[in-house]
């Protein structure tokens, strides 16, 4: 992988922020977009913008080909069995909510259990809280080990014959923990439960094979993998999706509409009510082309190298606390002495360095870490060791700055 070639494809990186070259270390929040994605959206709107699945005219056919072609790219990207199992949504949140509503509310009752973990993003907690309240099911948590990982023993203890749904993030957006999804899915299946995976932080960064993971549902977002905002994917096993009711009703998702009753289109369209996210789908398709051209294995290795380099360098700064396990994905969540993470982020921003500060949509995890907030640097395909050097220098300056005023 030629990092300079990769960086050239991200026009946004070529700018100064506050008088310094931009160092973008917030890709876990949203990634930057390669030129090819920006062009794909531009081409669609300039050249063949049209509604899909209904027009007889030429542009309509081209738009349909673009939209359904993107679905096939996604299918290949996650190795789903068929495009019937690939549903376009607004993002990971909508994907999870679709399962919580359509599957959760119709298959759960009092006495049943939903099992999640305390490290989940709010979008994989609240839908299950709501489903539990609506159905009388119980929400249970697999405890975290001290280093922020999940042990299979704890999973085996928490998941029981009463468990109907296990929902878990693949990679933690705070700790960087990579969860043993395949093993947990197997435990869930042993008890007759289904397994949903929040792949928002994994799909952009590593090769995903939903058949190998043997999960029942897999959710992810386009905007964290070089695609536009407003597009995401819900993968589901066909046997489950077939039995599920749509969540949104209206145009595009129907087969036959009578005065008092209607029937639905076949999969995957019955879950895509209304004019779909056509440009978004074409955009995520272009993002997949880009990621595959660079190579998912290359990207994963590159980010792991960066994370290791950053860990080594951060450990030389006195007063830095790093959260999460040794073996981690390409992000580092930390705190610096008594300096509040907002203040850290503001000083870094003055140096052109973008990091995230706050609770990262994981309030229960912040509570577990016993902090009110943390700062996070997250890496992607376009980041370099120089970025990390700038980040570490920025932290040194932050320390000096607050050392002076305190």
């Amino acid at each position, binding site marked *: 992988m030629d990092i300079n070639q990769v960086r050239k494809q991200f026009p946004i990186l070529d700018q100064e922020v506050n*008088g310094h070259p931009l160092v973008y270390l917030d890709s876990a929040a949203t990634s930057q977009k390669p030129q090819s994605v920006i062009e794909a959206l531009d081409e669609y709107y300039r050249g063949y913008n049209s509604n899909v699945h209904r027009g007889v005219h030429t542009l309509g056919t081209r738009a349909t080909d673009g939209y359904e072609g993107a679905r096939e790219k996604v299918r290949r990207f996650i190795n789903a069995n068929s495009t019937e199992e690939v549903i376009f949504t607004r993002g990971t949140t909508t994907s999870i909510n679709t399962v919580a509503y359509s599957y959760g509310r119709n298959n759960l009752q009092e006495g049943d259990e939903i099992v999640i973990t305390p490290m989940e993003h709010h979008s994989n907690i609240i839908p299950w809280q709501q489903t539990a309240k609506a159905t009388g099911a119980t929400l249970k948590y697999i405890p975290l080990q001290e280093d922020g990982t999940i042990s299979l023993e704890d999973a085996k203890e928490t998941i029981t014959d009463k468990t109907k749904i296990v929902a878990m993030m693949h990679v933690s957006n705070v700790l960087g923990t990579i969860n043993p999804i395949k093993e947990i899915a197997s435990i869930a299946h042993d008890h007759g439960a289904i397994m949903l995976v929040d792949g928002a932080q994994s799909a952009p960064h590593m090769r995903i094979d939903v058949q190998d993971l043997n999960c029942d549902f897999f959710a992810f977002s386009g905007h964290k993998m070089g695609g536009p905002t407003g597009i995401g994917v819900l993968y589901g096993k066909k046997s489950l999706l077939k039995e599920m009711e749509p969540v949104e009703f209206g145009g595009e998702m129907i087969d036959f509409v009578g005065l008092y009753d209607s029937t639905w289109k076949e999969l995957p369209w019955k879950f895509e009510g209304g004019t779909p996210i056509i440009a978004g789908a074409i955009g995520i398709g272009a993002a997949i082309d880009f990621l595959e051209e660079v190579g998912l294995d290359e990207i994963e290795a590159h980010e792991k190298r960066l994370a290791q380099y950053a860990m080594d360098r951060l450990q030389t700064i006195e007063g830095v606390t790093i959260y999460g396990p040794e073996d981690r994905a390409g992000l580092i969540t930390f705190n610096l002495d008594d300096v509040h993470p*907002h203040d850290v982020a*503001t000083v870094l*921003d003055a140096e052109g360095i973008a990091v995230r500060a706050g609770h990262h949509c994981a309030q229960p995890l912040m509570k577990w870490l016993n902090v*009110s*907030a943390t700062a996070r640097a997250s890496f992607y395909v376009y980041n370099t060791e120089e970025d990390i050097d700038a980040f570490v220098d920025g932290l040194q300056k932050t320390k000096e700055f*607050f050392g002076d*005023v305190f």
Partner: protein
Amino acid sequence: MSFNNLDQLYRQVIMDHYKNPRNKGALEGDHLTVDMNNPTCGDRIQLQLQVEDGIVQEAKFDGEGCSISMSSASMMTQAIKGKSVDEAVKMSHVFSDIMQGKDISEEMEEELGDIQALQGVSKFPARIKCATLAWKAMEKGVDEKE
């Protein structure tokens, strides 16, 4: 942006209020309590006010947050003590004006004292919500009381 701007943001008086917060803790006796969060970043404040005959007699706060939000809360409790509710709300509006970079009257400048040190925040749009958190809590509190 340079470290000059940062110096403006983190004035010594702000750091002093952050390190040695005034009126931190809880009130005893009859008082009203307001909890307020900044949900995007996790800052959290609990403000307690003792209001008698339309006058803020006592004010204390507790919470967690960055230097800007906590120092602002400290300064605010100092500023509104002994003021009428109307005056306190007016000050809050003036404070919002300062955050938007607007000029204020000399008379008000005197009234605000230390609080003026927070003027530098107006150059950091992402931090304005930190500075206004305590003021919003105060406004919510006196609004509910009425």
